[in-house]
């Protein structure tokens, strides 16, 4: 699996990497480990490939076509114009034409045409229709796990076709015929069993938070709480479990705690919902997303909180912002003065604006920051009360915390941001090659501002981005410690004990 591969070269003269020469099937060997029966069956999926996989797959596809307007409309509407064809970071990093968004969609569209359209039934390959064979199913498994569901392609599509919708549907079908992906399904199993993706049990979580409390007291002289399962707290904080111990994530958690402390807001995490991530999205499962999301509703009810705040996490914020009301609402038992859910950056930004917290940029002296817009935050959610708040608010918080901020090239940020390369359920060692290659466009834009503007650090607001960059930065000759949490900067800069309201 960990065969040797070449890290793609950077070209700092161009903001967006040049189109690579097409190298058909150059990534055909890249497939993640299959889920074992013990990670399939608890989720209600067959343990191994079922005998009647063909009919089951077609049946499931028909069901999804009837349930998701996106899938039905997107299967029909593509005109093969190619506007998306050079927009995927995995294509730019690999040159494999099946990583062009339209070609990735066509892996399924060809089957759709064969089984669900008169043209495909009558004219077959003339209209690009083909039978679902075992090779096709394998191809789906391979290339739908080379999509991070980042939606960059959908920005440029004249019909808004979103490849993420199609890759989610494909993974849902694969799960239902017994070809789940180990990484995602093992993690979802853990969420149900233990409460978080990392399998951190309640006792360990409480110990970790206690340890953080002691460390922070030593560092700051302030008794800043890191509460677990405190009934009656005002805020339920739901944050990716990486925030509980991994660097640089945990520095962000300390930042959230300091902000709450300074604002005098009581908060708690829940040991039963100690995870913001919802990998149900990556596998396209409405059922799993629903189950995972409702842990949060239950925790909010059990702990009698008034508000729900999410920590820094990309896809989790998408599920929270865009889907939580659908899955786990209505939220009529929470304080109606606050949006449900809120992002921690909305809390911090508001506090900076109204003077609730004060930040001293000198605490981050020497740092020159840039910001990586996480794909799910950028293109599938919002912060604040205006479109594009998801770009403005994190930047304003960073700018208030550090002496110098520089944006990367404009075609690589905001709605055109490049994925880190590890999103969408790809953050696993068995996909290292595609992760490194897919990171190339972001690495290129980062290296540009490092060389041209002396950028020292890149802030991200997503646990997956942070983990992915920590891993891939060294492949591109950059220091893994360059990646920081936004709230790590806040944590350094916040003036504790001053102007307490």
């Amino acid at each position: 699996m960990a065969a040797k591969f070449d890290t793609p070269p950077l070209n700092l003269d161009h903001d967006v990497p040049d189109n690579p020469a097409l190298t058909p099937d150059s990534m055909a060997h890249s497939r993640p480990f299959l889920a074992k029966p013990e990670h399939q069956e608890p989720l209600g999926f067959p343990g191994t490939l079922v005998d009647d996989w063909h009919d089951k797959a077609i049946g499931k596809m028909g069901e999804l076509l009837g349930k998701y307007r996106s899938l039905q409309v997107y299967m029909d509407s593509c005109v093969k114009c190619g506007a998306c064809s050079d927009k995927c970071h995995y294509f730019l990093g690999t040159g494999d034409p099946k990583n062009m968004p339209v070609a990735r969609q066509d892996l399924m569209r060809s089957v759709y045409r064969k089984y669900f359209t008169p043209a495909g039934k009558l004219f077959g390959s003339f209209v690009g229709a083909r039978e679902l064979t075992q090779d096709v199913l394998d191809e789906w498994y391979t290339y739908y796990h080379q999509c991070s569901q980042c939606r960059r392609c959908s920005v440029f599509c004249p019909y808004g076709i979103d490849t993420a919708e199609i890759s989610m549907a494909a993974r849902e079908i694969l799960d239902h015929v017994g070809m789940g992906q180990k990484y995602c399904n093992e993690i979802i199993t853990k969420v149900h069993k233990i409460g978080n993706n990392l399998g951190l049990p309640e006792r360990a979580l409480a110990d970790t938070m206690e340890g953080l409390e002691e460390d922070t007291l030593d560092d700051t002289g302030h008794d800043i709480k890191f509460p677990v399962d405190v009934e009656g707290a005002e805020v339920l904080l739901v944050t990716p479990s990486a925030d509980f111990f991994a660097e640089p994530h945990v520095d962000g958690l300390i930042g959230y705690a300091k902000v709450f402390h300074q604002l005098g807001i009581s908060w708690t995490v829940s040991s039963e919902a100690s995870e913001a991530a919802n990998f149900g999205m990556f596998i396209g499962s409405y059922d799993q997303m629903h189950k995972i999301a409702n842990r949060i509703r239950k925790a909010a009810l059990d702990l009698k909180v008034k508000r729900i705040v999410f920590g820094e996490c990309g896809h989790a914020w998408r599920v929270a912002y865009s889907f939580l009301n659908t899955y786990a609402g209505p939220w009529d038992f929470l304080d109606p003065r606050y949006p449900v859910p809120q992002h921690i950056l909305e809390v911090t930004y508001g506090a900076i604006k109204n003077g609730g917290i004060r930040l001293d940029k000198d605490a981050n002296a020497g740092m020159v920051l840039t910001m990586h817009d996480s794909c799910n935050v950028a293109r599938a959610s919002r912060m604040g009360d205006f479109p594009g708040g998801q770009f403005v608010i994190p930047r304003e918080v960073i700018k208030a915390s550090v002496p110098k901020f520089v944006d990367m090239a404009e075609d690589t940020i905001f709605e055109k941001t490049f994925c880190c390369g590890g999103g969408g359920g790809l953050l696993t060692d068995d996909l290292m090659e595609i992760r490194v290659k897919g990171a190339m466009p972001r690495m290129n834009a980062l290296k540009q501002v490092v060389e041209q503007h002396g950028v020292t650090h890149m802030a991200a607001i997503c646990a997956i981005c942070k983990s992915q960059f920590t891993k891939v930065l060294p492949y591109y000759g950059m220091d893994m410690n360059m990646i920081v949490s936004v709230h790590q900067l806040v944590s350094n800069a916040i003036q504790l004990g001053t102007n307490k309201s």
Partner: protein
Amino acid sequence: MSAISIAYAALFYLAALVLVVGLVSKIAQYWRTPAPLKIATTPAPMTRTGAAFRVAREVTLFESLFKGEKLLWVLAVLFHAGLLLVVVRHLRYFIADVPTLLVLIQPIGVYAGFAMVAGLAGLLARRFLNPRVRYITNPSDIAMLVLLIAIGVSGLFMKFVLPTDILAVKAFFLGLMRFSIQPLPVHPGLLIHLGLVAALMIVFPFSKLLHAPGVFFSPTRNQADDPRERRHVAPWAAGYDAKRGF
């Protein structure tokens, strides 16, 4: 009445029937199929009116395509705007007393015919010259462009090279509209032109031309960014609240 007139009358009744029934059933399918989740590509308008304007911009200005590829945008606009004007120009064949405005735009419609064919030729060339586009091209994609080019060229051929009796053509179509078959001129350019138009009408609801209704139903474009304010639950998912078990 010539056999050709009868055959073409039958062909156009069939083509119109297939086009209307096919499109209506596809639109009904899109309408019936719910979007269970809020998936607008953000930043997105925060109101439904704003989202309607976003869709309108996609339809009239090809806003997203403009972000994607400028050359393609130019070719697409040449073709689609040209086609629109050409279609408007052709309305005179279906209206007995042609209104002044329609008379005035007739010359523009001729230029539009050239713009349309030029745009299509560019799109066809691009299918061969751009290696990425060549890779994703199916035979049907080329056939569709060739069909449209042939319609445009045969039309321009009648305008500039070998005119047909357009008064008779008009009488033929006005006749069809009141179920009376009038003689159609036996003119090779005209028969080719009309045959191809009928073919286009017939393939429309079975082909990628469904992007025309599809764009109106694209959830990434037509949804408002308001999920925190407005709970969105699809009819098929209504039972999920009861499944929570607590």
